[in-house]
């Protein structure tokens, strides 16, 4: 087990290298000089000034030197300053990260808490009205653009029914609330964002769980379990379920990029100050340092998510944990 983990951890190094090189190249696609871009809005800066700044930031050096310098800074979590307000990029991201992580983790929990039992139920009722109706629903959820669903839900809950606040993560007078009211307030604000960011994943995971379960129920060992005289409940929940659930572990890892990507859209719709919205703002303002920092960050988060899921899967599946004798 230990050797496997060490091997996987070592595997991160080339991945990190690849991720940073690719991110670096993406930014270098930019036509024109970055410094120009940065200060182009500022008419007071002269051409000489720009040259000087370029030298200062090392933009006159060859590409690989620039990359190495950038990498050196990166290893110290120094992504430079934001073009828009001059604050350190790292600081801006750290400030915004908790909200995004909280919503995504809540979504993940929400997805799995509902999608797994739902998928199992569909599998056990394969071909019935319930199964077909849920298949259709999931199909629709899969096909609907998230931001459109968000708009419709906002219309319904916030405008027609007036039940929920339309945007933000807290009320204006949040600070003066007692703790229970704070919690309630947060809950009301978080409800729609978490729901919206879960819907797509929910459809995917429940369909996946359903097909895994159906497959497991058709395996030879299910005949064995029945032939032993086990009750149908034991057959399903001991023998089929364990086999069907194991591969789900890797799905958690795979759903991370989707969730993080979705953050951009729903955070900007619901006006939530997370890294998704930060990225959106950076993209509209062409704030290169910030864009680059976030691209690297989400890629690393994704990679770590996959890594953890892989190791977890290898651990829970005895066929991988123990080889042949």
């Amino acid at each position, binding site marked *: 087990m230990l050797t496997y983990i060490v091997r996987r951890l070592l595997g991160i190094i080339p991945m990190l290298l690849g991720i940073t090189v690719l991110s670096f190249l993406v930014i270098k696609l930019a036509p024109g000089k970055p410094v120009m871009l940065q200060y182009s809005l500022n008419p007071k800066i002269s051409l000489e000034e720009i040259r000087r700044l370029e030298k200062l930031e090392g933009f006159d050096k060859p590409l690989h030197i620039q990359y190495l310098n950038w990498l050196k800074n990166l290893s110290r979590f120094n992504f430079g300053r934001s073009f828009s307000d001059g604050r350190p990029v790292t600081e801006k991201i750290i400030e915004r990260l908790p909200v995004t992580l909280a919503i995504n983790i809540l979504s993940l929990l929400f997805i799995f808490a509902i999608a797994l039992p739902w998928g199992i139920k569909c599998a056990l009722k394969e071909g019935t009205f319930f199964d077909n109706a849920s298949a259709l629903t999931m199909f629709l959820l899969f096909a609907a653009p998230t931001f459109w669903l968000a708009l419709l839900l906002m219309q319904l809950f916030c405008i027609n029914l007036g039940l929920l606040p339309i945007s933000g993560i807290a009320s204006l007078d949040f600070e003066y609330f007692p703790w229970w009211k704070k919690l309630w307030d947060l809950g009301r604000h978080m409800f729609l964002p978490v729901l919206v960011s879960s819907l797509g994943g929910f459809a995917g995971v429940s369909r996946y769980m359903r097909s895994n379960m159906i497959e497991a129920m058709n395996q030879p060992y299910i005949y064995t379990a029945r*032939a032993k005289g086990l009750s149908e409940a034991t057959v399903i929940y001991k023998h089929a379920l364990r086999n069907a659930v194991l591969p789900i572990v890797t799905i958690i890892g795979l759903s991370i990029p989707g969730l993080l990507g979705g953050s951009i859209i729903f955070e900007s719709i619901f006006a939530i100050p997370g890294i998704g919205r930060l990225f959106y703002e950076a993209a509209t303002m062409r704030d290169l340092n910030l864009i680059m920092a976030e691209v690297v960050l989400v890629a690393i988060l994704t990679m770590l998510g996959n890594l953890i899921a892989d190791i977890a899967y290898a651990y829970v599946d005895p066929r991988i944990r123990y080889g042949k004798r």
Partner: protein
Amino acid sequence: MGNLLEIRNLKVNFNLDDQVITAVDGVDLDVREGEVLVLAGESGSGKTVTALSITRLLPRTAEIVSGSVMLRGKDLARLSEDSLAAIRGKEIAYIFQEPSSFLNPVYTIGNQLLEAITLHHGKDKEEALKEARELLALVKIREPERVLLDYPHQLSGGMNQRVFLAMALACRPKLLIADEPTTSLDVTVEAQILQLLMELKMRLGFSLLFITHNLSIARRIADRVSVMYKGEVVEEALTEDIFKAPKHSHTRELIRAYEKIGRL
């Protein structure tokens, strides 16, 4: 000798998307107390479906259209799912063709074996473990302690079939149904498993319904042979008689083929 099991006019259909296929078409079959009955036939002849129908272990698409399955006077075909579950494993046990895929890959051998032991008799853990070791010794597994902790994929096909046999015999069933249990094994291992099976049958006195396409096995172990062809039993006779004087044309064809390629 009396009949342990009497199957009468069994008919099983498979309801597929666009058609109905009759897999078993009016089968009568008797298994006598303590005998070895070989159910022989080629692929698709309906022998496995017949065997699974006895305790209704069929896939969802299958449907028992008619027939009775009497076990010592009790009609299994009319029993509720719960009462049938009480009979499976306890009075009628199965072993299958590919032991490695018929064992659950995510549980240890010990777990699966203990399940079989404790299911029909409430035993405490110590007792059950002792029983498990004895069962493994019964099927001549040398390192029972180690095997109990192993997962199926860590054992060879032959070992898994031994484990399977131990599991099937846990409740000392009256009838053991073996569906091509040696087909996926090498010939030398096949010989060992068959020998073990016959030894255990002598010791424990169960009846054996053995399903195979391999007539040389039939010749070796059977008291009687039933031949199935296209969902029907076309011939049933004492082993000696059927090889000496086969009556049905399909049996003759089978035996001719066996003489050519099954017999050394």
